[in-house]
């Protein structure tokens, strides 16, 4: 907690909301890690003997099923616990992906803003075109890999000044990347995620990571770019450039640490956003396919019978609420702690 300011840690820990948020997140993490170990029930197993009433309705909470059973007579507590793992995993991994992409795009765009452009390696151009062709031919996963590899090669070529990789058309990196961000932000987030999810055909935990991560970086990139524009003209950056330090080293050692504060705040809030997005996707049927327990899908399955079995809605709804609230409070605490105006 010392992103340029050692006093930030103290401010964070004194922040009441942040402390509540930390406790809530801690509880959920402990629940996700520990609860499945002592739940004593298989979240995928239907208990036709003790899990159903005579009407065929789900059994109410009892000593056997602490939070009752669902419509397929599976233990709600066990499903909630496993669902917590998936929600946290999706939230964190998707956020890591989105943050890495957003930071890379934002820093590159901000650093090269106003320059006469950078050369995009032919290897990358070819890869991107091939990616598009592959997408049109109906292989979205292969297309995604091609685009990623091309982007990585391009970035390495540009930043490391690797000559064989640098040859190619000149492009205004800032304008190109920011227009891409504009286009991405012009779509409603969930719509974009659902479209990408539909293109991937099958939905698994991995594809949800990718779809959320690949669509969730746009806002981060814009904010990081703005911060980079401030940092790049600071004296130590200009000095490093004058001394001939490689671009990649400047970006990683001088720019990145100075944009890390807002990046961490964004990432924390993003975890909550990703968990909500995953829940919404699962609720809408575009998320992880059943029977994998996810909170969103538990909400969807519970809605038909919540008048007779309210725990089917209450359990996942409260879990989502607590988790999202926890991460948002931590994010707000971080923002207040790192914001110089708070001093």
């Amino acid at each position, binding site marked *: 907690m010392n992103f340029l300011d050692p006093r930030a840690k103290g401010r964070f820990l004194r922040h009441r909301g942040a402390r509540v948020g930390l406790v809530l997140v801690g509880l959920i993490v402990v629940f996700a890690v520990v609860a499945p170990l002592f739940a004593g029930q298989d979240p995928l197993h239907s208990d036709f003997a003790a899990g159903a009433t005579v009407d*065929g309705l789900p059994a109410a909470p009892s000593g056997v099923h602490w939070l009752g059973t669902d419509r*397929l007579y599976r233990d709600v507590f066990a499903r909630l616990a496993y669902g917590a793992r998936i929600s946290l995993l999706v939230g964190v991994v998707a956020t890591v992906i989105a943050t890495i992409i957003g930071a890379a795009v934002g820093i590159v765009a901000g650093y090269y803003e106003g320059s006469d452009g950078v050369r995009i390696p032919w290897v990358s151009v070819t890869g991107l075109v091939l990616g598009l062709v592959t997408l049109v031919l109906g292989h979205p996963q292969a297309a995604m890999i091609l685009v990623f590899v091309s982007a990585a090669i391009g970035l390495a070529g540009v930043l490391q000044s690797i000559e064989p990789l640098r040859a190619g058309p000149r492009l205004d990196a800032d304008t190109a990347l920011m227009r891409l961000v504009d286009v991405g932000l012009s779509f409603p987030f969930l719509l974009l995620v659902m479209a990408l999810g539909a293109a991937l055909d099958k939905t698994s935990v991995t594809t949800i990571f990718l779809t959320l991560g690949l669509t969730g970086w746009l806002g981060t990139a814009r904010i990081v770019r703005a911060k980079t524009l401030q940092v790049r003209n600071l004296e130590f950056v200009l000095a490093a450039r004058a001394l001939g330090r490689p671009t990649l080293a400047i970006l990683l050692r001088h720019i990145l640490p100075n944009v890390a504060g807002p990046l961490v705040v964004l990432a924390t809030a993003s975890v909550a956003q990703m968990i909500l997005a995953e829940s919404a996707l699962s609720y809408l049927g575009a998320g992880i396919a059943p029977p994998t327990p996810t909170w969103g899908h538990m909400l969807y399955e519970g809605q038909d019978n919540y008048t*007779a079995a309210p725990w089917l809605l209450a359990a996942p709804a409260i879990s989502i609420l607590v988790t999202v609230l926890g991460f948002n409070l931590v994010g707000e605490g971080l923002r207040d702690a790192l914001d110089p105006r708070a001093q």
Partner: protein
Amino acid sequence: MRLASFADIRTLDPAVTSDALAAEALELMFAGLVDFDAQGKVAPDLAERFEVSPDGTDYRFVLRAGLVFHDGSPLTADDVKRSIERSLAPDTPNSFASFYDRIAGFEDFTTGKAPHLDGVTVGGRFVVSIRLREPDATFLSALAMHSLRPVCPSAGDKYDPTWLPCGAGPFKLVAGNWDRGRSLLLLRHDGYHRPGEPYLDAVQWSYGMNGVTQRFKLEAGELDGTRELSLADTARFMRDPRWKALGDYDSARSISAEGMNVEMPPFDNVEVRRAVANALDRDQYRLLRAANLEALTRVLSRSFRDEDPAFPGQKHDLAAALEHMARAGFPYDPTTGQGGYPKTIVYVVYKQGLIELTGQLLQQQLARIGLRVELKVVSYSTYLSLTKRRGTTTMAPEGWQEDFPDASDFFDPLFASSAINDEDSNNTSFYRNPVLDELLVRGRKELDPATRKRMYDEADAMVCADAPWALTYAYRSWTLHQPYVRGFVPHPVWSEYVAKSWLDRAATAVASRSGVLRDVRYAAGGAPP
């Protein structure tokens, strides 16, 4: 009358529609030469009368005078012939075409060798005759279905998906009243041939509305009936005698199964299909919705056949299922979890409560014999498109609601090889069995009831043994209407048949939650509403 469904309809052209939901609207929009009466018997409708030759091959229909289509044009014998030819034309993706293959000249016409269907002739402005090449015990019933019903001259003589559906039924569709995916509004056809009918001014369906929403809308007086209540709501309403009095069990018969595509691995191996049929515990399926389901171990449910313990249907037998898996070359050891079919089977399922649940139950039950199933959840329209197209779906939930009360209706459209179509196949398992085909052909010609019964029992046993479907349950809907809905009697063939219904709002309170309960108390007490 305001109705709703969780699902959606793709088309309202009677020539190509095959799903039960669209059939509710088709029955109101299109009238046929004959239709099923309140007892489920074939009776004249657009035809004033019909005559059948002694050998059962010639049918002569005399139309009523003064019939008009929704667009005001007169309905004549020429329109009847044109509509039949349009429906059976080679370019029309009619999944019911095989029902009419006994009409003389069917083969030549449907393969494009003949410009017209020889067996259908116009004998005057109001007389049309249909000649069969051989007797067909089911022909009149098939004719009472929607497929060949007369369509307006605007339909032309070729199927066109952009055509605005228009017929001569009691209700009509006006341009702009079908908001695809959301709602359908049909208005009263003033030129309908039955004097005074229909009684309703309009019928409206809302699509894509889940069961809980339907319940709340019913209680808020925004729906006049529902047949898709959740398990909890069904249990609640059935427990309360005041509500129960407003409900009716649908007498239409429907069956459900887990369908397997016999052209795609692993279900191209009959032993794997038999393993699935043995692996399913149908009592567990039934428990998921005990008020509506009964376990199904043969194609012809108890509504058709008395219980027969000796019948070799599909029974739950885990040991036998494992034995079939071993015979198929995929032995599985349940204690170690080793073996089984090495690949994952994709099961295409649409978003609907019970179907999604049974899909997950199927996963659990097949895992016990070494078959790993992955659910792919799609919309109902996508589900229909995928399952009806050849080579696209390995496994999917299947269901069938009878078109007419005859055993053949559960075999000819589902399991006959003539019902296979590359793009819009009704035989979604793509199952072919020449012996069954031959048996079904003889069954259609056979006019003796006892002999027919024996033949269709034999067909049933054959399908159970070959297992293109692993049968699961028979479903009876329970329909709940507002107390002011009058004249609704469950039809033996058509679901949600409201053609004879009317709303008596003047005599009953607004259907708020308390209002409904008050009205029901009146009804239960025998006092006039």
